[in-house]
Every structure is written in structure tokens, then in C-alpha cells.
């Protein structure tokens, strides 16, 4: 049994069976944002609707976080990428793949993964990205 780490960020299973990020679209200027906003950052409009973004995109950049807040011992390094979604916005998320298999320009799709270093129940999951064509863990 998997449960999302936080509500309102993503749907566990969208129409295509992949996790879908929940983005906002401004009814006034059309600007999209993730995480979803209540007021538009571009035009300050207040009529925003939340919609699901298809879980496909391209890696814009990536890194491996090897320490955080001075913690190194017993720290589990994790890969984070910025991904340009097909919905037309850049988002950040964990990558469930070995660093040597990640590259700028790579096609990825969404998956689910545990939150590293957070001391949470392994059934608590967040969205992540995996190289397109691979199964989720």
C-alpha cells in the first residue's frame, strides 16, 4: 500500500497509468506553474484552475546531492533533475536511476519513489522521474 507524502502535489495514477503532477493554469494569461498556485505569478490573476500534467518530459539539468545541512554520515545520496514537461513548464524532482545513466536532453517519464533521508515509512512515496521506457521500482 503506497500513500503520497503530501496531498495536492501529484496524483498517484493519471489517465495513462503514470503519476501526474498537479499544475495550475491561469484563466487570465494562461501561465502554468508547479506546485499549483492560488494567484498567478505572471499576471497576479486569481482565476487559476488545477489540472494534471502528463508525465513526460526532458532532462534540463541534474545533480547528485551528497550532503545536506552538514549531514554526511549515513546520508543516502540522491539524484535530482530539472525536467521540462511536455505541458510547457520546468519542474524539479527526484530521479530514480543511477547517476551515470542520467544526461541532459534525456527523455524521462514520471514514477514513484520513497523520500530519501527523511526517515519515513517506505510505503510513503513521492513522484520522481525515470528514463523513458523503464519500469517503476
Amino acid at each position, binding site marked *: 500500500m503506497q500513500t503520497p507524502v503530501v496531498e495536492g502535489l501529484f496524483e498517484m495514477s493519471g489517465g495513462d497509468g503514470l503519476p501526474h503532477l498537479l499544475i495550475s493554469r491561469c484563466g487570465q494569461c494562461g501561465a502554468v506553474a508547479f506546485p499549483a498556485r492560488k494567484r498567478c505569478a505572471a499576471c497576479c490573476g486569481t482565476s487559476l484552475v488545477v489540472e494534471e500534467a502528463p508525465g513526460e518530459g526532458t532532462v534540463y539539468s541534474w545533480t547528485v*546531492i551528497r550532503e545536506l545541512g552538514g549531514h554526511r554520515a549515513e546520508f543516502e545520496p540522491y539524484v535530482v533533475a530539472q525536467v521540462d514537461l511536455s505541458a510547457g513548464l520546468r519542474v524539479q524532482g527526484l530521479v530514480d536511476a543511477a547517476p551515470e545513466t542520467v544526461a541532459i536532453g534525456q527523455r524521462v517519464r514520471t514514477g514513484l519513489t520513497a523520500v530519501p533521508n527523511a526517515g519515513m515509512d517506505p510505503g510513503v512515496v513521492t513522484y520522481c522521474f525515470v528514463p523513458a521506457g523503464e519500469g517503476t521500482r
Partner: protein
Amino acid sequence: MRRVAVVGVGMVAFGRHPERTLGELGADAVTEALGDASLGWKDARSMFCGVVGGGMTPGTRVGNELGLTGLPIVNIDNASASGSSAFRAAYMDIASGRVDVSIAAGIGKSGRSLGDLRPPASHGTAEYRANLAGWAQGAMPPAGVFALRSRRRMHDFGCTIEQLAMVAVKNRRHASFNPYAQLRKPLTVEEVLAARMIADPLTVPHCCPVGDGAAAAVLMSEDRARALGYGPLVTIEASVFRTPTLAGDTESQDADTTRLTCMEAYAEAGMGPKEIDLVQVHDAFTVEEIEYCESMGFCEVGEGERMVERGEMTIGGKIPFSTDGGLLSRGHPLGPTGLAQVWETVLQLRGQAGNRQVEGARAGLAHMVGVGGVCVIHILRRG
């Protein structure tokens, strides 16, 4: 608006000061700045204190150390730009005509603002959910943010990690001439590349150190400063503060905000990049110095790394950056950093920077950005 001069600067060397409280560190820097201006604490009519965290009214504790004169003291927390924001507030207090003498101070002790590894356990609050949402997107230390920017820049412009490392090496060399700098031992490109990896491709020397320290400046109306015979007099030609918009044209919000802030500052000062002789920049990470050099108009986008490689940003080069060692080597205790930049700029413009002196320096630019979206730029000139 009245014109404003900087008549005194003071600093406590950046590094480790476990034996002094925040209030004591600040009082030492303010006392040095007042001494530099041949003034006393009783002469100050207001004080603005840049500090990140530090408990309630840390700047007021600085004042309590120095004596209860009743002056207004305002604490300003604007992340890395806190000290620069305090400097601007002191400038505004004089420029508006309200007071003739105001102090800008900055204080900081590392560790006070750094978060724990795990999300806080106060379940159910909005802050807890916001924190979890951050973790759900891949918890990102500052080094991670700039690792993403570094890797993309290497992809877009063919910049190499060796070129980025040259920024750290250059700024360490500048710091070796600054007794107030936190890291002064010379560094090589090979040592930068071989150091511990923090966030690929950035190793430790690509990232500024945390530490303790304080810095302060005494500001005065230019009319009064001239009447009192201060010289050589350093005046504030531009003071500009912006938060981001979505109107940027590069891939970096900090670089875009820097460009817009800098354009306003050049207009306010009636100067352009050609009139600037030295720059203190928010080089918390090596890639930043290169990006902001471009945003400030010293070269085209994509040319910054070649400026560093050719030595043009070194003391003695075309436009020296981070002449005191920058955040990377002078250090970055958050609150005082923007005022350490003022300290360095004023010494340079007076011709008092010793063996790191930029020959003939007449105008200097100081730039800080802060997390959350703050950019502050000041242009100082030798009058």
C-alpha cells in the same frame, strides 16, 4: 533626495568567533567603523542591522552593548542580502533628510539559520506540509541549485569545470592579501577538482564557507561630510533593490534580476560598465560570478568563463571581481557579507587596500542576491 557619503567602515575578520556573542561582534565592527569616521556612538541617529536568524532584535543587542542612546534600531533579514539591505536603509534614512548620521551593521554566526536534515515533526501545520512538499520535489541545498546551473551552463556554452574552478582559485588568491578573509591558503585548480564532492559537479571549494563575523559602515549626508572635511570622500551614486519578475530572458532568475537591478543602478549613477573599476559580487558559488559578470554587462552571455580564464577579473585585469576574496574565500556569514563588500569597496576607492589595491580605482559596484528573490546593488564613487 540628498546625496550620501560613507565616512567610516569597520569589520571583524570572518571565521570562527565562539567567544563573542552576536551583539559583541556587532559592537566591535560598529566601534571600528565609528573610529574610522572619527565619530562616537552618540553621534549615530539610527542604525539598521542585517542579520539572518539570531533570535529577537539582535541588532538592538549590538546597541545595548554600546550604550542606551535611544536611537531607532531596525533589524533586517533578507537572506544573503541582509547587510546590503541594511546599507540601503541607512542610505534612505539620510537621503530622505530625516537624519545626518546613520549606521549600517551586519552580524552573523553560522549554524543559526541552517535547517535540520529531516522535516520538522510538527505534523498537521501548514509549515509542515510546505516543508514536506519541498522534500517531495527533492530536498535542495543551495549547492544543489548551483550545481544544476553549473551543469547546464557547461552544456550550453561548453564551459568546463576547470574554468569554474578558476573563479575559486582567483578569489582565494585575492583573499591571501586580505587579513580579514576567512580562507587565505592558496588553492590550485587541481585541488578544487580533487576536493570532496558536495553536489555534482561542485566540490567544496566551488562553494562559500559558513562562518562568523560582523561588518559596519557609517553613513553621513554628503554636505555635512564635506563641511567636516572628510577625504578622500566616498559617495553613494546608486542604491537599487529589486525582487524577481517573470520577464527574464535567460534561464537563471538570479541573473535576470541582477541584470534588471544593474540597469537601474547604472541609470541612477549616470554610469555604465565602462566607468566601473572593480566589482564585489555574490559569488556564493563559482558559476555565479561568471553569470553575474555577464548580467552586469561586462561581457556577452556565454563569455564569462573566458574572462576569468584570461585573467581579466583578477586584480590588475580589465575589471577585477571579488578583490577581497569574495564570498568564496573572504567568507559569507550571511548578515554582514554585504557590508564586507562596502568595507572593501571603500578601502579600494580611498586607495587603502594595501597589496590588493586596484590602481586608480574611482568607482566600485557591490552586488548581493538573496534566497527567495532579493537583489541589491550599490555603486560607490571616490568624489
